[in-house]
C-alpha cells in the first residue's frame, strides 16, 4: 500500500515517526505552514520556519525515503497579530520554490477582519503564482465558518477545483462537495474525525475529490491514522483500488495542479553518502 499524507506537520514530529510512517507505507507527504504551539511575534520567525519547510525538513524526510513537499502561507490565527502582517510581503519568494505545491493553510480561525484581509490576499497570491490553495476551517463556529469560507473562495475568482477545504466533518462535508472544492478530512485520535466515521463518510459521499490526512502536529495526534483508516476501508468492503485513489491518486491529482509535484522514487541509499540522522550524530 502506498500512502500520500496530504497534510501533516512533520516539524513537530520525531525521526521515529518518519521511520514508522515509512514502514506503514507513507511515501510522500505535504507539510502545510501553520501555527506552532507558541505564537510568533516577528516576520523573521516565519522566514526561519519557511526555510525549514523547504530545506531541513525535506532533507530529513529524504533519509527515510519519504518525499516532502510544503504549502506556505500566513495562517489565520497569527494573521491577527499586526507584528506578523509583513509575512504577506515575503510569501512570493517562497511560493516560487520547487517544493511548494500550494498556498496554505489559509482561511479562518476567529473570523476577524484581519483574517478576511489575509485570506483574500493569499487567494489572490495562489492565482498569481498558479498554485492550488489549502484552506483550514475554524474549530469554533465551524459550520458558519465553512459557509463563509466557500463564499470568499467564490468571490476570489480561484477555480474551486484548485481548493481543498480541510478539517471537515459530517456537518460540513455536503456544502463543500456542492461548492466544487475538494473535501479534506483530518483523522485525529479524539477530535476532528475518526477512522470509522471517515469510512462512513466515504460510503455516503464517495471517494472522488476527497483528501484524507493525519494532520499530525504538536497536539495529540497520530501520523499512522492514515494507514489505520486505509485498513478500515479495506475491512469495510472498499477495494484496494479505492484505497489507492483516496490515499495516493487523489493527493497526487490535487497537488499535481501546481505542476511542481515530484514523486520519482526517493532512494535513501542514493543520498549524499551518509548523514547525521540515521547515524544518530549531529
Amino acid at each position, binding site marked *: 500500500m502506498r500512502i500520500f499524507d496530504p497534510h501533516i506537520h512533520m516539524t513537530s514530529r520525531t525521526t521515529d515517526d518518519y521511520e514508522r510512517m515509512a514502514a506503514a507505507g507513507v511515501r510522500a507527504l505535504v507539510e502545510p505552514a501553520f501555527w506552532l504551539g507558541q505564537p510568533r511575534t516577528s516576520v523573521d520567525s516565519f522566514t526561519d520556519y519557511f526555510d525549514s519547510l523547504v530545506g531541513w525538513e525535506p532533507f530529513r524526510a529524504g533519509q527515510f525515503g519519504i518525499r516532502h513537499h510544503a504549502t506556505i502561507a500566513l495562517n489565520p490565527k497569527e494573521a491577527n497579530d499586526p507584528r506578523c502582517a509583513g509575512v504577506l510581503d515575503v510569501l512570493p519568494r517562497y511560493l516560487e520554490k520547487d517544493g511548494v505545491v500550494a498556498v496554505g493553510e489559509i482561511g479562518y480561525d476567529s473570523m476577524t477582519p484581519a483574517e478576511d484581509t489575509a485570506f483574500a490576499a493569499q487567494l489572490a497570491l495562489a492565482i498569481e503564482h498558479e498554485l492550488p490553495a489549502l484552506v483550514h476551517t475554524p474549530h469554533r463556529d465551524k459550520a458558519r465558518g465553512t459557509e463563509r469560507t466557500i463564499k470568499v473562495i467564490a468571490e476570489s475568482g480561484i477555480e474551486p477545483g484548485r481548493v481543498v477545504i480541510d478539517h471537515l466533518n459530517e456537518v460540513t462535508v455536503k456544502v463543500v462537495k456542492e461548492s466544487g472544492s475538494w473535501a479534506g478530512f483530518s483523522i485525529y485520535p479524539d477530535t476532528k474525525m475518526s477512522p470509522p466515521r471517515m469510512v462512513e463518510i466515504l460510503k455516503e459521499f464517495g471517494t472522488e475529490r476527497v483528501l484524507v490526512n493525519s494532520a499530525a502536529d504538536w497536539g495529540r495526534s497520530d501520523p499512522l491514522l492514515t494507514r489505520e483508516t486505509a485498513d478500515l476501508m479495506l475491512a469495510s468492503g472498499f477495494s484496494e483500488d479505492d484505497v489507492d485513489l483516496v490515499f495516493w491518486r487523489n493527493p497526487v491529482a490535487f497537488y499535481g495542479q501546481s505542476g511542481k509535484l515530484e514523486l520519482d522514487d526517493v532512494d535513501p541509499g542514493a543520498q*549524499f553518502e551518509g548523514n547525521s540522522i540515521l547515524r544518530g550524530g549531529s
Partner: protein
Amino acid sequence: MTLDDLHAALARAVPPIGWVDEAVRQVRADPGAIARLFPRAARACGRAPLANGWTADEAARALLLAALPKDRVAEELERLYRYGDANEKRAVLRALPLLPIGNAGVPLLHDALRTNDTRLVGAALGPYAAHLDAATWRQGVLKCVFMGLPLSCVDGLDERADEELRVMLAGLAEERAAAGRPMAADATGLLNRLAGTALRKEA
C-alpha cells in the same frame, strides 16, 4: 569548471539552452529579475548530472549569478542564499569561486557549515573555502568526517591539512575506536598521511 565549461555542459545536456540564455539576458537588463528566475531554474533546466559533480540546475543558477552586474552581485547573492531552498543555497555556494566577489561570500560558508545538511556542508568546502580561516576550515573537514561525507568534497585537502587537523582526527579516531565504531576509510587514510608527514618532520 569555468563559467564557459558550465554553459557548454548545460548546452549539451539541455538542448535547447534557450531558457538559460534568455534568463541571462533578462538578468543583465534587470538584475532584480533574478529573484524570480533563480528558483525557477530547476523546473526549466532539470537536475541532470553534468561533469565534476555539477547538476543542470546548479550550472544554470551559476550562469544567472554571473550575469549580475559586478556592483550588485554580492548583495543579490546574500538575498538569494537567505531565501533559497536547500538546492538554491547549494547552487550559490558552488558558484562562489566563479564570481567577482573577493571574500564577500565567506559569511555564507559559515552559515552552511552551521547547518546539519550534508549537501550544504559539502558544498561549503569547495574551492571557495580557500577564503576560510584555518580553524573554521579544520572544523569543516572534521564535520565532514563526523557526518560521513566523503572527503572528496573538500577542495585542496592534502595541501591544506596540517598538524592541528591531524591531532583533531586522531582524537576522533580514538573516540571511535573506544566506541567500537569504524571511521571512514578516507578519513583514516588522511590521518595516516598526516601522521607520516609528522614522522618525517621529526626525523
